[in-house]
């Protein structure tokens, strides 16, 4: 006959730092606003301020940059809409409004993190370096970049580089013109040598 043995794992030692998993663990009174969240409502698409105890109110330091981000996304969406209606001038007007919002957003980068600053700066340079009107695909990519930032503004630098790559993928130039010229100059120099 086979014999079997099992290790007994003592769970008690980490109960102190582990919170109650369910109401059955201890409570004597339960107040529920919503008993269960449907699975489709969970996920990473949720406005992140909903997870913050103070939410998107003035007392919270995250309120202002998020407001600016939402405004920028809205302007790009209006630019896309104008472009679809064959109104390139209207579309450009909205993009100029986004250009005006980005420097202020960049200032917030100091408190939001390197990833945030990198995406804002890349978006700014994409618009500044654009030679002529942006295509719908390029506008959509810019909107996606800022939307990702509004959902998860504390992204790390690696994730910001992914967004920059996506910009480059549709023909945008997310680096400063001076940097591009400098790198071209260095490449030419190496060629001469």
């Amino acid at each position, binding site marked *: 006959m086979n014999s079997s043995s099992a290790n007994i794992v003592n769970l008690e030692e980490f109960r102190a730092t582990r919170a109650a998993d369910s109401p059955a663990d201890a409570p004597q009174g339960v107040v529920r606003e919503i008993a269960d969240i449907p699975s489709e*409502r969970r996920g990473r698409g949720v406005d992140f301020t909903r997870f913050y105890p103070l939410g998107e109110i003035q007392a919270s330091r995250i309120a202002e940059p998020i407001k600016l981000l939402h405004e920028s996304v809205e302007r790009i969406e209006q630019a896309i809409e104008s472009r679809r209606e064959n109104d390139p001038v209207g579309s450009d007007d909205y993009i100029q409004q986004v250009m005006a919002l980005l420097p202020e957003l960049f200032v917030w980068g100091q408190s939001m993190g390197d990833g945030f600053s990198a995406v804002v700066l890349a978006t700014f340079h994409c618009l500044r370096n654009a030679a002529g009107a942006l295509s719908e695909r390029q506008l959509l990519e810019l909107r996606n970049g800022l939307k990702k930032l509004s959902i998860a503004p504390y992204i790390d630098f690696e994730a910001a580089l992914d967004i920059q790559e996506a910009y480059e993928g549709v023909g945008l130039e997310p680096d400063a013109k001076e940097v591009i010229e400098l790198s071209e100059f260095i490449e030419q120099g190496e060629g001469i040598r």
Partner: protein
Amino acid sequence: MNIAQFSLKSLILELRYPHAFRLWDSAGAIWTNATRRWPALTLRDAVPNQTRFTLGNKAEIGIHIDRAFVNVGASRVILDDFVPFCLFIVETAIPLLEIDTFTRVGFKSTFVKEYKTMDDAVNDFHSTGMTKQIGGKCFGIEGKSDSPSVTIRVEGEYLGCATTLLVRRRTTRLDVQVIGDDDFEPVTKEHLELVYDCDYFTKGEMAVGQLKASQWIEDAMHVIRRDSNVILGG
């Protein structure tokens, strides 16, 4: 009674996530980084599924395959003692674990008020109006409520809070392990306490890039202190 009469004794941040198998590759890098910041960190557990260090008797940091936590405790804790450990977990350890989402972010604060007698503690507990004081014979027993407790759980769509108010008698004992040593005597200390414990947590998946630990903890602490009157009676 209000929150100002209590001392903040303990703060815990717990992050839960889907299995982070990177722990098996990155544990060394994480803890090397941690011991550079806090050289006095002492290894307590290091097994494949969990690693845990302590810093004196003040702080405990643990990184497990499915959760990470920071636990700071003292006679009077302040957020500045706690937040640097949380930032280390969120900004250094989590990227190395390559985690995308948190399934739960929990912040537990424990406030304690000490008493000379158990009766005083029980009277203050009942003065909150959370439960009624039972007098006379009850369940065939002539006695009185000795260590009452009540827990209220409030849940919204994305946030929840489980608050517990209880009276407890806590005894600590320091043993002297050396037989025949007269230099030290065993010490026993008894604490009669009213404990206000608040566990604030997120519900649903939260992307890693959505959490700024210092901001979230400050917000949670603000709300816990602001709304404590609901439990303590103001």
